[in-house]
């Protein structure tokens, strides 16, 4: 009955008293490299099936639609900043107000964009991905368990 709540399952396998000798339901074998051994045909087919399901495709494309532009955006902005600072210090030295110049604003801008993007990612994951991913996790574990002919 502990499978009713996938989070609980994840926690329970962490107590580690038996250290995998009593193998976790969906984890690996006792030697810690169980992910590989999980490739018994039935379990492998289940993962393929889940991968092809519309629900999973939706979660994956939501993740990628946020992450790919996000990574491109901040890497371009950072590389542009470093290249400008090293090759065109004159542009960066242009004063804006008081002691503040373009370089100061750009540096603090890097901090600001990092905070904002981190917040946006967390919000996107929480609202758009977490619930669907949790349901998929739950379903997948159910399928793997029944494919193995019941549980322990």
């Amino acid at each position, binding site marked *: 009955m502990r499978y009713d709540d996938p989070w609980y399952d994840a926690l329970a396998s962490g107590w580690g008293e038996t250290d995998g000798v009593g193998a976790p339901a969906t984890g690996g074998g006792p030697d810690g490299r169980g992910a590989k051994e999980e490739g018994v045909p039935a379990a*492998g087919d289940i993962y393929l099936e889940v991968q092809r399901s519309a629900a999973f495709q939706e979660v994956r494309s939501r993740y990628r639609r946020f992450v790919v532009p996000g990574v491109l955006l901040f890497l371009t902005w950072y590389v542009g900043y470093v290249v400008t600072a090293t090759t065109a210090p004159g542009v960066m030295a242009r004063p804006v107000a008081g*002691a503040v110049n373009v370089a100061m604003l750009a540096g603090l801008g890097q901090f600001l964009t990092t905070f904002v993007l981190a917040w946006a990612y967390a919000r996107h994951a929480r609202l758009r991905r977490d619930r669907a991913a949790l349901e998929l996790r739950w379903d997948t574990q159910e399928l*793997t368990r029944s494919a193995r002919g019941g549980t322990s």
Partner: protein
Amino acid sequence: MTGHHQTLALLLFSGFVAVTLAITTWVSRNRRGSAEEFYAGGRLFSPLENGFAIAGDYVSAASFLGVTGLIALYGYDGMLYVVGFFVAWLLVLFLVAELVRNCGRFTLADVVVARMSERPVRIAAGTSSVTVSVLYLVAQMVGAGSLVALLLGGTSAAARAWTVVGVGALMVIYVSLGGMRATTWIQIVKAVLLLSGTVALTVLVLLRFHGDLDRLLLTAAERSGHGDGFLAPGLKYGGDWTARLDFISLGLALVLGTAGLPHILSRFYTVPTARAARRSVLWSIGLIGGFYLMTIVLGFSAAAIVGPEAVRGSNVAGNTAVPLLALDLGGGADSTGGTVLFAVVAAVAFATILAVVAGITLASSASVAHDLYASLRRSHAKPRSEVTVARVASVGIGVVAIALGLLARDLNVAFLVGLAFAVAASANLPVLLYSLFWRGFTTRGAVWSVYGGLVPALVLVVLSPVVSGGPESLFPGVDFQYFPLQNPGIVSIPLGFLAGWLGTVTSAEVPDEAKHAETEVRSLTGAGAV
């Protein structure tokens, strides 16, 4: 520095060592000796705790003392470092933290081998993880030796050597007896100490300038003797084109290397779920960002209050800028306040080094025992004996780090850290991203991408001006310098990605579709995660 500073600083050092040893003893009393417990602390830390521990693991003495010193001496160019160290966390948050938590168990290799033929990949990933860790460890040991000797006034070779040996012995004790749980609590204690010390100094600076940051910057520029040039890039990296290219290379290594550091990756396994891993990265981004913003203020105020000549007079690389600033903020060299603040900063720096080396030692002993030993030994090792191997490995790594730390004591700390980041970005990041996101990735691609990043990075360093051919080289007498840059990142990182692609397209192995499906489903949903 008078005797009062040293006595008080030594007292505070001893206090910190006593507290950390108490934590280690207390934690190891109820240990059960399982791998889950030793490598991952039982996976039961909360996101808040893990966030502090990540901040404690990441912010080394190179940030606290080195970067503030660079800002005090070179102004804006020191700030460029800070930005690279910080922006790197977005890559960790977006592409690595949650997926690695879902797919792996203890090490980087665990994520990759899920899809590959196990033995060669595990050996490759284990080798590169240990290499990165040892480089990073040597940097911290060298820093520990010179800083503690400097802060305590004893600059003799013997004092430095004994400091290195002492730090090495302590980190081996923490790791081999306490495992991940003790290491994590030491990181948390250290992060709290470091952040409170930094906040206290920043508040004192703001009080001194009545909250007027503009005046702080103007005073710093004026005292530096460079005028407005102090507040713009170019003082340190503005020389010839080699120097500029070198900085771009370092910048790339900093932003891409963090996601491949083994001791950062292993922190994600200490929380129960991927969601908790995400939330711990968010905490650590807040803490690390706040910390780095304060170090910028402290660096500029060291230039404004202490002055670059005094900073340079105490230590050429500027490593003592913050302690000197603390002395002045507390009321000057002969006042009680100055003595106390100076000693506190010295003790915090020491705590920083100790905590960081403990984290790296643990991660590298996990790679030795879980990846290298388990693959190179024919028969299967029992989990219990694997933990024993890891404890022994931590002693071995401690000995290696002490020996290299004594040998390399004249190398620049910032260079060594930059090198560790470059190797991590060239050897670990490509294989990690390929195996998480590329359907057609094969075993040969994985092995090639690790060695294709690791070997060029190390060879280019051997051929660089750091090792030979210049007055400041490791071997000034000989000249086999063929590569002009100090940091190999700009060449070796693309090579790592290229080698992985090349190995994959040339291999006859058909990628296992089911295994890829398993990795993808597990990484995004957490199904089957331990």
